């Protein structure tokens, strides 16, 4: 406990500065938050003056807590959860301890090896998207209609690979993805890759499902029971897909495998975001906000939901194409 307080403020300040610079630098615009967190942790190891493994792990733990704290307060995650950040940190720490146990007792040598391995690990996480796209695009066939939800970098790279490299002709229906409207952004990306896109409201989910041959979504976290935590609406999409017998695929990097076991929606970690505003967009002219600041009215803007494993057909990951039950097997192997 005492070492924790000793490490605190100046230490965390450097960590957070590091994280923010990673997030804001233009060359890293395509870097996911967990990968940035891993790089931050690598820097922590480089700077560390710890002489034991326990000391080093303590520093990493403090760095993790600091980053999670920043994510909660400063909203660097946007309308997203801190789950990928947490899972990225935890996996990296697991990686470090594993390397330590496999290595000799020489701490200096061990640190060198950990740094080396850590770099490759962070690098692997960057190439993950590429390998997921390679696995996933095999599931897309000529002339299909693909339904997706909001904007996901993994899904985008997958669809782009299918269209540009494999020259497949298919079309995409994308849900708007309120509140941040990732769907519109996704539509721009897809049309640039010459993929015909239709944008529909989130509430058109059932209407659009009838036309879809398959559903592909990204994930913020893949949880231990094989389900996924993702942008709000994914659960409803999964239920609709199941009801209409449409395959439901999830594309996610393995660094998003989280040590979470949600039992239902109420069991998810609460992510605080700002309150949303509501307006009638069909009216011509200026948008007039509808007042929801009355007594008896509660606005509940949950940003994530949990899709249980039984709604998921397959998961495209950098470890291969996995069934939901294989996820927990991977996690047991990682942490047991």
């Amino acid at each position: 406990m005492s070492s924790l307080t000793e490490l605190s403020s100046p230490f965390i300040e450097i960590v957070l500065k590091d994280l923010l610079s990673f997030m804001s630098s233009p060359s890293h615009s395509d870097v996911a938050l967990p990968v940035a967190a891993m790089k931050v942790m690598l820097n922590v190891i480089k700077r560390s003056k710890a002489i034991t493994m326990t000391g080093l792990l303590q520093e990493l733990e403090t760095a993790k807590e600091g980053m999670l704290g920043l994510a909660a307060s400063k909203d660097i995650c946007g309308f997203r959860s801190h789950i990928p950040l947490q899972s990225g940190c935890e996996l990296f720490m697991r990686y470090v301890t594993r390397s330590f146990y496999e290595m000799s007792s020489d701490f200096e040598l061990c640190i060198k090896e950990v740094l080396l391995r850590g770099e490759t690990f962070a690098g692997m996480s960057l190439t993950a998207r590429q390998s997921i796209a390679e696995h996933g695009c095999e599931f897309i066939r000529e002339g299909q209609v693909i339904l997706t939800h909001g904007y996901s970098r993994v899904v985008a790279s997958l669809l782009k690979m299918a269209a540009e490299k494999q020259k497949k002709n298919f079309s995409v229906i994308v849900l708007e993805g309120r509140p941040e409207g990732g769907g519109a952004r996704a539509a721009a990306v897809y049309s640039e890759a010459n993929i015909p896109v239709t944008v529909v409201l989130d509430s058109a989910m059932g209407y659009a499902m009838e036309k879809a041959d398959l559903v592909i979504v990204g994930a913020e976290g893949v949880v231990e029971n094989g389900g996924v935590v993702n942008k709000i609406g994914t659960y409803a999409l999964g239920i609709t897909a199941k009801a209409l017998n449409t395959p439901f695929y999830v594309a996610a990097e393995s660094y998003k495998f989280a040590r979470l076991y949600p039992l239902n929606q109420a069991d998810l970690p609460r992510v605080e975001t700002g309150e949303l505003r509501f307006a009638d967009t069909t009216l011509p002219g200026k948008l007039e906000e509808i007042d929801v600041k009355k007594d008896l009215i509660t606005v509940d803007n949950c940003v994530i939901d949990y899709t249980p494993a039984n709604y998921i057909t397959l998961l495209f990951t950098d470890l291969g194409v996995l069934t939901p039950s294989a996820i927990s097997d991977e996690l047991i192997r990682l942490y047991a």
Partner: protein
Amino acid sequence: MSTEEEKEAEKARKKAEKAKRAAEFAAKNPNGFTKPKEKLSKAERRAKQEAQRAAKANEADKSKSSSKNPKNPKNPSSNVDIGSNNDPQASASRQVLSSSPQTLALPPPILNNSNGNSNRKQNTPPRKSSTSSNVPFSQPPSTLNAQSLFSHLSPPMKPPLTKTLSPPPQTSKSIHPSTVTLCNAYSRFSITGSNSRCIAMLECFKKIIGDYEPPKDKVMSMDLTRVLKENFKVITESRVHSISMGNAFTFLKNFVTKIKHNEETSVSKDNLLLAIDQFIEKTVQFASDVIAKEGSTKVKNGDVILTYGCSTSVKKLFAKALDQGKDFRVIVVDGRPELEGKKMLGYLQELGIHVTYVGYNSLSYVMKEVSLVLYGAAALLSNGSVVCRVGANGVTLVAGAYRKPVLVCCETYKFSKKVQIDAITHNELTPKPDEFKSSPCSDWVGVKYDVVGEGVAGIVTEFGIVPTTSVAVILREME
């Protein structure tokens, strides 16, 4: 009209011929699929032949009177409960189910039950024990179903155990007095619950090992294995061993076989006793402490937790959650005849947790307000089936109907490589409760366990919460 009758008679004749051929086939292939047939005594053979003859005669009678059900060659009366099902395959498989293997220790594998081999019935030797019901003929039809469904299970032991208390003379030296005491406790159900039974057995083995002196001309590891095996056999005769006991015994046996030849006896014994103590401490007790910690993360303020039975790890979990200052209340659902929930009720009241105690019949009434269902398991099988106290399957189904998450607590030493898809093929019968002893209804079918195939959201183990599909992976990782 008359031609129809002729047709019926013709059909019945063919059926009888088929049965005859089947009997011949059975005689030629006495081994069937599962295990070697026991040698029949002369009297037993005669009894079997007579039974076959009677069946045939009965068949002929039936065909004459153009009975509605000419298809069942062996047990005409058993058709009563099967109802109007005339499918020969189906009735054959039912017959197989009602056939009686001799021991519970080797129940028929599930797959063999469903292959519809109608020869099996004739193949089965007459029942050894006269206490188990001789299914057809004399029984009222309504009880036939349940009776015949579980007739392959050996009848519950009746205390006092005169039979097991006097072991055969050549082995009697190996049977330790504490084994006899333990057997009595098991058969009287004064020690129940898979953890308690396992610990009691290991304590008994500790006494056996403590008093053990290897004969001069024998190797300790081999001789001690024999002694332990003999004692274990006697223990299992008092009450069928639980999977926890089986796994613990396997652990012990493996340890004994590793005893070095040149080691001092006292050193080996000390090592063994230490290993047993560590097993109890780590694998059983510490595991349930970790389970309590892992499971308590799922208890939130304002939760209403429904529990069934009286599991050690669930009790620890409640205590842990209370320690963490969580505000929750518990509904204890209890089922007859054991009413184990009473123990849970007493325990929770002592802790000062708000408890509601309801009977099994109010299950669906209380389920609405529940936020989590939690119970302990006797074993987990590699296909993800949960073996637990009878009644838990009903609780799980009702919870599923109300969309309530179900968590099952189970230490990994109770994980088994076995596969079971129903609670019929392998179970344990309970003795008739006292209140029914004088009842005119003479049949009692009580089973001990349920097998829960689906509806379980997760298993709380000492490795964290895992889905039921991961049992096989954990078993592999543990090796």
